[in-house]
């Protein structure tokens, strides 16, 4: 049981609809909650679940490459986000820490509500699209998961102000592509190359997360937008 590949194989034995639901839930949390302390573990969980779905059609050893690369990319982004938070705090721009320490559960900000509505619409559209435009020869469960992830990825990119969240949207998009394409060409070469791409994108997301912290006194576009929309503390 201590072998991670064996763990992934055991996880892949869970029914496909359950795995797809869990995957959608993890990706949904990434879309709704923009605080990296919650969004990044959810993204890492989505990589593990995507790996479990892939192990249903691939050798678990090959499928393991995906969660491995994804989790490593998430770790890199987490380090960058932590560093960015420290830098923001030093220059008095940080609101992320405050939001986590003193969440106001009773007052939902309009931004979070908007994201919830968008996520619900995307979910319905994606499931509909999976039924209407299935990818030939690919497993239906994987196709549905791919459509949901692609929809969530695009929604996240479209509704985010902060660099890190846009980056997570790109990682979700890559994951969607991998779920849809890998069963069509199940080779170790494709899996390795896509894992390398995931790591490279993770690196870019980390660098851009740090670059998003403005070095000047002027607050960033992200901070201004968030400050105006979330006057009260929130979790998302």
């Amino acid at each position, binding site marked *: 049981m201590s072998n991670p590949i064996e763990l992934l194989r055991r996880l892949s034995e869970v029914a496909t609809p359950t795995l797809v639901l869990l995957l959608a839930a993890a990706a949904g949390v990434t879309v709704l909650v923009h605080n990296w302390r919650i969004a990044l573990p959810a993204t890492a969980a989505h990589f593990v679940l995507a790996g479990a779905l892939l192990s249903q059609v691939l050798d678990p050893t090959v499928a393991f490459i995906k969660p491995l690369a994804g989790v490593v990319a998430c770790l890199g982004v987490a380090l960058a986000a932590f560093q960015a938070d420290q830098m923001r705090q030093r220059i008095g721009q940080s609101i992320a820490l405050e939001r986590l320490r003193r969440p106001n559960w009773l007052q939902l900000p309009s931004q979070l509500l908007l994201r919830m509505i968008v996520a619900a619409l995307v979910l319905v559209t994606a499931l509909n699209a999976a039924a209407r435009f299935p990818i030939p020869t690919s497993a239906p469960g994987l196709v549905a998961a791919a459509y949901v992830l692609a929809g969530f990825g695009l929604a996240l990119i479209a509704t985010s102000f902060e660099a890190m969240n846009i980056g997570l949207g790109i990682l979700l998009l890559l994951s969607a*592509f991998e779920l849809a*394409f890998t069963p069509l060409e199940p080779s170790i070469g494709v899996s390795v190359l896509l894992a390398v791409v995931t790591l490279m994108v993770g690196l870019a997301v980390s660098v851009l997360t740090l670059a998003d912290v403005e070095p000047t006194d002027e607050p960033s576009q992200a901070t201004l937008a968030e400050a105006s929309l979330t006057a009260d503390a929130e979790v998302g």
Partner: protein
Amino acid sequence: MITLPAVLLCAAGLLIAGVSALATNQRPWLSASIVALVSALLAGLIALPVGARLTLLGISLDFAQPFVVLGRAFVLSEVSRSSAAVVLASGAILLATAWRTPQGRYFVPLSAALIFFLFIALTVRPFAYAALAFQGAAVAGAILVQGNRAGSRSTLSSWRYLVSATLALAALFFAGWFADRAARTTAADPASAAAAYDVPTALMLIGFVLLLGALPLYSWIHPAVKDAPPLVSALLGAVVLGGTQLWTFEVWRELDWLQNDTVRSVLSTTGSLLLTLAALLGWAQRSFARALAAALFAEVGSGLLLVVTDSTRTAEALLLSTLARSISLSAFCLGLAVLDQSSATSAPTRLRLWALGAAVVGGLSLAGIPGTIGFVARWVTARGIGQTDLEGMLLILAAGASISIGVLRSAHQILSREVSSESQPAETPPEGDNLPLRLTLAVSIALTVLLGLWPSALVPLLGVSVPQ
């Protein structure tokens, strides 16, 4: 005797140059020189005549032999040889320019990575795997754009570039798979051939326009040029866009099913739209960065028109315009970089004048004004397109004229500022300190003008004929 695929030597050479650049990153002049020298040597090697054999220390280089890794073949085909040579030469020219003006902490190693990925994209088969290399180039480009960040810069362009490359990756991979499937279907039922290729054709078109930054309009080229340090804009404009255009042309020539009227019409409409936009907006610009963005729109637009023109001169025009663009951009963006740097310090007026001169000459060359290398490329392009599309040719000429006005207005804007600030004398360092920089500026100006007068000097590298 051992036989080695030339493509492996080139890829390994670029990788080693990149690692060396990282190791010597503290000395930008050294790292830039290493990568520029290696790229130039490899470009010269690839540009050797087809059929030539080279033996070094008992190792024979085979240009046609593919190198297979993870089931994918890397090969320097007859078409991709010229493209790869031009991309490497463009990279060498731009990095040689940058030896005194580093544009960010990891500018040179990331530029080496960018050149490496584009080389891989041009040589890998099947074509869909080039999308992975373009994604790698997008990662390097997105980080490069953030070099030398000042307060007002944003990460918007980096994200847009990354998102475009990711969407193109998915589109191209699926296009490849659907095309294989269509080939199998067509073999079994030839009557279904036309409909079978609809999906891959649409996906290929999406991939092309996203990678070239053509659609959606203003997606990543415009903000990238605004956000990036000048020499990074030059790399994106010459190496990335040039490499992508050459790859698009290779794929277009290779895939028979792609050459239909619908694709021609979509690509030529997109090209015309970009050229019209450049012609309408270019003249109104009063900033070099915006004039550059308009010029890049025109370059992408004319490239798209060229790709769909079944002219004998298409390959020649594309190769020449990529190389000419890198030479023009080296002068233009070096001038801008020096102007940027010197505005932060109290640099001597003479250096600023040299920089302004380089920016104007490079900008006019980019617009295709006679007497510059840009004119030669513009002329060959216009002649190639004019054989079948007169409106396209007129649009190219109009865009060039409009951009040249934009360049001159931008120069006038800077000169006006210079004159008004001369009333406040500043303590200036001695002129001798800037001699290497002034020499680099002079060489880049001279190269832009002299190659415009004697373009035949480029023939060995292009492997095609250049009109006198």
